[in-house]
């Protein structure tokens, strides 16, 4: 019992420290929630007739926050909203065409590129920025800080978890989900052999910046490996953890054990959650934690309430990520753009982290702020969809994706990831071996650097 308590205390130590930091911040700046602080409630001296942001779609959050901004400040906010995959293209073309862009957003994978090309402005010296920076989670600090300057505010954070379909596990007379990769294979083979599931595992292996790559990064990290060392040298050579992980992973597909759902090669995080909700697979993952709000939503999933979250084998090491909003260098008025940026990625006029809190409550997204992560917005907001303590326990074991694959900080990461998606899919479909795949990727690093 006491050991359990100590264990729990150790596991949540980071959160406790985070809370302390958050409280300290509250003492310094007024309060984390619900109070007006000076600069937030003061309008910039300059005049603008409108502002705009360029973002990727997520429910109606942008309509709501734009409306709130207009109500609070009397300035109309135009929004340009595209899909996640189309966002970099939309932003790039608008920027190139000389259009005004006050605020935009980025995944951590595109962000160094955007900064490198001059799309974003540093925010360190802007009023109230220091308070935000103090409240940043470690993930946020790593994403938002580029060359020593703070280049953005957090949109949301996520960690990679596994999901399992509890009823199917029970049907297989297996009392608990896998604790090792060997056990994972045993469960899947049994599910297939017993006719309970033709394809027991649904991987997230669709083309993307963090979908297919994220699955490989996560399992490699969990097994004790990485993709680049601190000096930036690749770790994909013969015998490397990444290479052996890929061999193991590819073996679950058609040319090997044939336990992987062929849809794996197409699904993204949300579409994967929807597909898993059909109840045909035993396991899904590793992938962003918030898919539970689809799998366990009765309106979207016939197996709602039966999908559980599960940590990773061994020490449970996993990865996490934070996406950011940034102040565009193509803004029409820096002070007003900063005001708008805070509505999206910081506090609103009333002093609340309005956007971050509603994202946690409505969409099960994590926050890039310590104070929000430690608030009831997360503890109560996530509860309808999943086991919150279990997810937060996984959260504490997560490292930022940049620690696993430090190339995310480099502008050439994006073209290299394009190649990674191609080569790994070729490997998973049996067109090339894992050795050939990794050799090609090693060669591709130099090619990607030339493309930048």
């Amino acid at each position, binding site marked *: 019992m006491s050991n359990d308590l100590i264990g729990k205390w150790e596991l949540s130590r980071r959160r406790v420290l985070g809370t302390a930091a958050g409280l300290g911040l509250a003492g310094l700046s007024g309060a984390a929630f619900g109070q007006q602080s000076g600069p937030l409630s003061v309008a910039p001296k300059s005049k603008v007739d409108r502002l705009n942001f360029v973002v990727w779609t997520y429910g109606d959050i942008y309509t709501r926050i734009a409306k709130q901004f207009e109500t609070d400040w009397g300035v109309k906010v135009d929004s340009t909203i595209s899909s996640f995959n189309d966002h970099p293209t939309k932003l790039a073309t608008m920027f*190139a*065409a000389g259009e005004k862009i006050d605020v935009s957003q980025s995944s951590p994978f595109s962000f160094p590129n955007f900064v490198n090309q001059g799309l974003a402005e540093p925010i360190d010296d802007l009023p109230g920025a220091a308070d935000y920076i103090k409240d940043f989670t470690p993930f946020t600090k790593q994403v938002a800080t580029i060359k020593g300057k703070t280049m953005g505010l957090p949109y949301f954070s996520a960690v990679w978890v596994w999901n399992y379909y509890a009823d199917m596990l029970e049907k297989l007379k297996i009392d608990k989900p896998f604790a090792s990769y060997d056990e994972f294979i045993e469960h899947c083979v049994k599910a297939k052999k017993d006719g309970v599931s033709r394809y027991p595992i649904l991987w997230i292996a669709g083309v993307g910046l963090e979908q297919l790559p994220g699955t490989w990064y996560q399992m490699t990290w969990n097994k004790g490996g990485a993709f680049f060392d601190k000096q930036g040298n690749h770790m994909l050579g013969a015998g490397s953890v990444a290479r052996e992980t890929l061999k193991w992973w590819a073996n679950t597909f058609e040319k090997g054990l044939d336990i992987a759902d062929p849809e794996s090669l197409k699904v993204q995080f949300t579409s994967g959650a929807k597909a898993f909700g059909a109840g045909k697979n035993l396991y899904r993952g590793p992938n962003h934690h918030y898919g539970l709000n689809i799998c366990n939503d009765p309106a979207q999933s016939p197996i709602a309430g039966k999908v559980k979250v599960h940590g990773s084998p061994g020490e449970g090491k996993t990865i996490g990520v934070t996406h950011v909003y940034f102040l565009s260098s193509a803004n029409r008025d820096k002070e007003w753009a900063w005001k708008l940026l805070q509505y999206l990625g910081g506090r609103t006029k009333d002093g609340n982290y309005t956007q971050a809190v509603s994202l946690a409550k409505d969409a099960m997204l994590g926050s890039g702020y310590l104070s929000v992560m430690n608030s009831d917005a997360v503890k109560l907001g996530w509860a309808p969809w999943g086991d919150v303590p279990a997810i937060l326990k996984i959260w504490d074991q997560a490292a930022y994706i940049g620690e696993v694959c430090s190339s995310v900080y480099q502008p050439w990461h994006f073209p290299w990831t394009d190649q990674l998606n191609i080569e790994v899919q070729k490997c998973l479909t049996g067109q090339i071996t894992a050795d050939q795949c990794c050799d090609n990727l090693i060669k591709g690093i130099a090619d990607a650097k030339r493309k930048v």
Partner: protein
Amino acid sequence: MRASHFAFFMNLPTLLCLGLVLAYPIGYAAYLSVHRVGLAQLRRGEFPFNGWENYGRVLEDPLFWVALKNTLVFTFITVSSEIVLAVLIALLINQSSIWTSRVTRFLILLPYAIPPIANGLIWAFLYSFQFGFLNRILFTAGLIDNPINWAGNPDTALYAVTVPYVWRTLPFAIILVHAALQGIPRELYEQSAIDGANAWHRFWHITLPMLRQIIAIILILRTAFAFAVFEEILAITQGGPGDATWVAAWYSYKITFAPPNNFGMGSASAYILALMIGAIALVYMRFVYRRVTL
């Protein structure tokens, strides 16, 4: 005013419009293709000249050659399918004695009215591995025991994308062939019938030669469009699995609009593609498009 001058002035507005809408972007793309152009350069309007470097980088990129090979396979399959099917279907709906041909003529246009991206999405759902309508039909009909991964298998993905593309673009070819068929003088068929020619002879010696010019036009247009196929790729496979459905236009798009947004290299790849299409059009004109003499 002389007739030639009058004709020139009458054509001037069209010439100006074409110059602005077509010639300027083509010229600008040529300019970009020999300069270093990223987002920052576009914003500043300063493009450092880099000669043929962009072309060299495209040509030494193995992915470009994979994309080109896929494009050639895609184009050959789709264009040849369209020509054969268009002639067959146009011959059928040209039978005025069959009243349903009038209904068919109308219905055949429907796929052409569907936006390409919507067409791609419809077929993406049809092809879905576990939940797709196509596998469901085949399974129900007893033709397959297990679902087929049409768009997710590297061996079938490229062929899978050709079907929705042909489905969407075929009406255009049918309309052209049908119009050409209506222009063939009936007397030719009547005279050949008197001479004892059967249906096959009439098709081979009258219909096909009379369709040669329109077939050449369809070949040129459809080849150019097939070389630039994009929407179905975007909606159904996004180039995957692996590089199985990377085509030339997808390559240019990714190079240009995905970070690091190399507009110069993207323009160079598009220019290489345009030059290839031009060369193929010349071949068609030389070997297919001939004046018909009877």
